[in-house]
């Protein structure tokens, strides 16, 4: 892949004595939806966190738009995450004290937008994700499916180049899971965002253009228990 937006090359990362990544490499093209597949403990979430600049690998490099990401200071990586990346996690990605509209407006407010236009844009995204009716509710007052759609709206509202989604349907039933994936992938494709999707569910991976399978922290080897 010559026009990769994001690349990880031969990443190694250990937590104490436990290797989480032991030679993981991946490339993400602009606008591509990529699934990271693998059993529990295979390192797929750790790889996603390295790609997103949340974790630094012990060995190997991560490049975003051609420049090293893993070399940047914590502050610069945080700023990059706010400006260029969006995130959807399995649990707890919404701020419990804020309403849905304020949760979605949060990335815009952190980027310096004023409150009224930020909330207005947030409401547009809640409508696109078919959860406008919970705009003034807090996360504790929503169903799991509604909460994940609000989280998707928050991930996409700033027009990120890459959305990182870690088991975004893991806590949902199949119907709500499909709804969330339809909306996440559909909206990302409309605005040209790439999506890096961690999942152990094949039906979720089927939304992706391509999959990379991890096993025992490696993306290119089969090591079986």
């Amino acid at each position, binding site marked *: 892949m010559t026009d990769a937006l994001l690349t990880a090359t031969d990443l190694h990362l250990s937590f104490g004595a436990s290797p989480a990544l032991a030679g993981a490499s991946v490339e993400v093209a602009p606008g591509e939806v990529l699934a990271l597949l693998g059993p529990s403990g295979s390192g797929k979430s750790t790889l996603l966190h390295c790609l997103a600049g949340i974790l630094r690998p012990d060995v190997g490099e991560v490049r975003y738009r051609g420049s090293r990401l893993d070399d940047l200071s914590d502050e610069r990586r945080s700023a990059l995450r706010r400006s260029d990346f969006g995130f959807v996690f399995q649990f707890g990605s919404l701020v419990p004290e804020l309403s849905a509209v304020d949760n979605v407006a949060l990335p815009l407010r952190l980027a310096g937008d004023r409150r009224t236009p930020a909330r207005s844009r947030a409401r547009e995204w809640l409508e696109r994700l078919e959860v406008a009716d919970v705009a003034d509710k807090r996360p504790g007052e929503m169903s799991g499916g509604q909460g994940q759609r609000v989280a998707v709206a928050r991930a996409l509202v700033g027009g990120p180049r890459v959305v990182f989604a870690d088991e975004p349907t893991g806590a949902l039933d199949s119907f709500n899971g499909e709804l969330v994936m339809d909306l996440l992938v559909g909206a990302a494709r409309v605005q040209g965002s790439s999506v890096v999707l961690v999942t152990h569910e094949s039906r979720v991976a*089927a939304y992706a253009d391509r999959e990379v399978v991890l096993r025992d922290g490696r993306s290119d080897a089969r090591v079986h228990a």
Partner: protein
Amino acid sequence: MSVTHTLLGLIEVQPRHGYDLKRAYDTRFGQDRPLKAGQVYATLGRLERDGFVAVAATGREGGPDRTTYAVTAQGVTDLDRWFSQPEGPGAYLQPELFAKVVLALQSGRDAGAVLDAQRAEHLTTMRALQAAKDGVDLDRVLSLDFALFHLDADLRWLEHTAARLSRLAREIS
């Protein structure tokens, strides 16, 4: 399920005569549908005619005459092709895939590669089914979902097996 390739795979693991071959097949793969003896001997005849097996020995061993067959180089080549070719995802995939995994382990081939090729094949089909759901009526969506859920079940079995290949290899060796 390709009974022919499964029998050929069993002969590759070790030379066998017809009765031994039927017993090995029924024990490992035919609990629900044991082979008829006539099918085993007819298949052996075709495999010999096509050059995939050859007579290795004949003898009586205190019972009726028995002809023992061994795989030929041409038979090994045919098996290589069978192992490397993923199955077209369908309703009765699992028995053939199961046979491939077991025989790959027994013959020293890379069973993980068999599973990886199958996963890629399944996901290709699932992506096409997923894409076909765009903009069609609900009854068509539900029909596509039916296929997707069945393929998903195949893949869950496949991942379950992939995580246990070493143990499976020990148990069947």
